[in-house]
């Protein structure tokens, strides 16, 4: 039996006396899209940093496809992480940035070159690929950052606000790419404030509030749990479970 793509056991993170993440238990199956919701400061980015090994937990464990996240060398191949602020170098052109990531990941440059061209074309970046990133728009930067995240075909994708700053066309391209990858077996952990995106893409939704997972299930199930009214949306459910969390546990 395959281990869950993402698994955490009593994962906890504190900063001094502030608890950023209480005991978080997650078990996310391969190939699913998990929508990770929560108000600002709920602990979403902290969770993502813990899942990538960029931050050490105070207690508890986390693993990706059965590999503990503190095994840095193995985790690098398993995960693609797109943080909220695109990690790009303004001095490079889009193509150079992607080739740099190929070098960082020690991928085969010749084999990847074709893939880079395909992805640049898929996201309408071919014409601008040789321009410096410092001159890119927010959306173009976000698209390059997404491409570098998926370049090595990771089995687990952690995306923090991936559609932020994208125009409707680019957002559509990105959502299609996420769905396509998920159908191919990639597990996507998607953190966003744009609830319709989650509603459209996610198989499972988890709502984090004050460092605690206060609701989890399919979007329909979470919506139903929060509101008996048949017209309720995920937004209504989100507002309900994050206003009086204790009542929903």
């Amino acid at each position: 039996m395959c281990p869950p793509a993402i698994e955490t056991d009593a994962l906890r993170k504190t900063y001094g006396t502030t608890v950023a993440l209480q005991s978080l238990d997650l078990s996310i199956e391969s190939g699913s899209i998990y929508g990770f919701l929560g108000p600002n400061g709920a602990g979403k980015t902290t969770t993502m940093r813990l899942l990538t090994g960029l931050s050490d937990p105070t207690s508890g464990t986390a693993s990706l496809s059965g590999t503990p996240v503190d095994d840095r060398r193995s985790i690098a191949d398993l995960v693609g992480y797109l943080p909220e602020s695109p990690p790009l170098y303004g001095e490079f052109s889009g193509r150079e940035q992607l080739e740099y990531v190929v070098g960082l990941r020690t991928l085969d440059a010749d084999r990847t070159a074709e893939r880079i061209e395909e992805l640049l074309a898929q996201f309408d970046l071919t014409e601008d690929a040789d321009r410096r990133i410092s001159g890119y728009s927010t959306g173009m930067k976000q698209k390059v950052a997404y491409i570098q995240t998926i370049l090595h075909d990771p089995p687990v994708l952690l995306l923090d606000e991936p559609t932020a700053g994208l125009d409707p066309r680019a957002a559509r391209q990105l959502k299609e790419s996420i769905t396509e990858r998920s159908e191919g077996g990639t597990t996507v952990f998607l953190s966003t404030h744009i609830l319709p995106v989650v509603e459209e893409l996610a198989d499972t939704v988890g709502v984090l509030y004050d460092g605690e997972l206060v609701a989890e299930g399919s979007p329909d199930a979470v919506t139903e749990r929060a509101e008996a009214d048949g017209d309720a949306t995920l937004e209504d459910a989100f507002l309900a479970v994050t206003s009086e969390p204790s009542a929903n546990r």
Partner: protein
Amino acid sequence: MNWREDLRTGSTIARAELRRSVRSISSDRRRLAEVAVVAVSVCLPLLVLVPVLIGEGWRVRASTALPPVAGWVTVATIGLLILAVYRTVSAVGAIDQDALVLTTAHPRAVVIGLTVAEWVRQLFTVGVIGCVLLTAFGVGAGVPWLGLTAFLVGTPLFWWTIVAGYVGGMGLLVLDDRLQFDRRLLAVGGVLVFLVVTIGSQLYVSRFTGAITALSPEAIAIQPLFAYAQLAFVGTPFADPIGSGPLIVGLFVIMSTPLALSISTRLATRHWLADDQRTTNRSHVTTGGFSPPIPFSWSPAGFVAWGALIRAIREPRNHGHVFTAFIAIAPFAGVYTNAPASEHGLLLALGGVLLATVLSGELFVLNPIGELTEQLPLVLLTRLSPRTLLRGRVIGATTAGVVVLTSVGLLALSIGLNLRSFVLVWLVGSVFCLAAALFSTGLGAAIPSSDTTQQWGTETVTPSIAAQIVFLFTVWDGATIGVVVLWLMLSGWLTVTPVVVGGLVCYSVVVVGPALASYRSAVRRFESITLAAVIE
């Protein structure tokens, strides 16, 4: 162990870092100009040193014996080591885009990449300067290839200083992460330690001039290091028989490199994955709102000044560039020690004038537009006029200077300065502080810098290097002249005559005139500024 993979990734990172360094300069006209200013300020002393070294080489040519330089080889190596520690703490110890780099490459590969890039940078800056100086000496001594051979021999030593310095610097950064002290206490503590080391060393040398020979570099010479450095002279009349020294040094460099890289990797991983102190210190709670005290509450400019002061006190590392004020003041300690005890009070107060003047000119005002880049959309859409904003910064900078001036003055009073001199020094010092702050606004507004860089573990916007160099050449030199004249007058060595009065009037015009003109030009620039102009 995956050493091969890490070396490959490390070389990718090093090449990328170097390419970024070159592009960040070559694609920006302002930064190109800055590099030109730095190059000129480095080349000017070389114009003097090169002929001197050619002459020195010529002098030793006949004797076929080198002057005693073993100690200088040791001093140079220690100097490079300290430089590497400083560079690690201030810049190279941080990763740009850590979320990308640390999720794609192993920390050891990152350490290799960053240290190799730094090694190349140092070779092509410090190394080339050393090469020029040694070539000059070699030309005089009849071995014109000396610079090249020294460069080749010195390259492994450079590498060792970089990796060992990286260990030291990372150790300091980890210590900084581990200590749960308030950042302000650490910053103040760091400045105090720096003051004790720089001023203390000056005092020591001055006080014990009789024992100065004991402090000569030859006293600390490491002979195997000198023997290694002598490899540069192989094939020349100055060559000594090759002993075991070069072998010892060579083996030491080879053996210690993997160890240093291993320690660096452990320390770096700990530092890079440490919780951000700014996130950690969520317990910092400020109650009572923003309520400036009198007299700051009297005017909008006072509001601006108080805001600048509060921010500087809460995050002093954002003003790390004022460190130059302390470096500039250090040699003054030697003057203090050599003077008779009866003069100490006055000299201390005058030292305070210099320190306060440089501080006033560097704090808040040396990059008034660049520092505001992020806030410009807010600032430009308020009712505050550019004049008020700049005046507020000038008031804040002058206040900081006057506080230092007053504190040092009171200390001077306690060791014998008379009240009349205290008042006079304080008045002159206050004018200097104001003039320096006014002058800096124009200088800083003319060369704004909005680039954010990782320095001292924090991302900060610093004034352009060109502005800092011009500031030190003008304000520091100008203030020094004024302080010397004031000292001569208060000591009774300069009496008031029509010539002296005329000189003082001229000096005042030279101080006040450019300061006011500079301030006006800053206001004009601020009035015409747009977001696009700053960001470009």
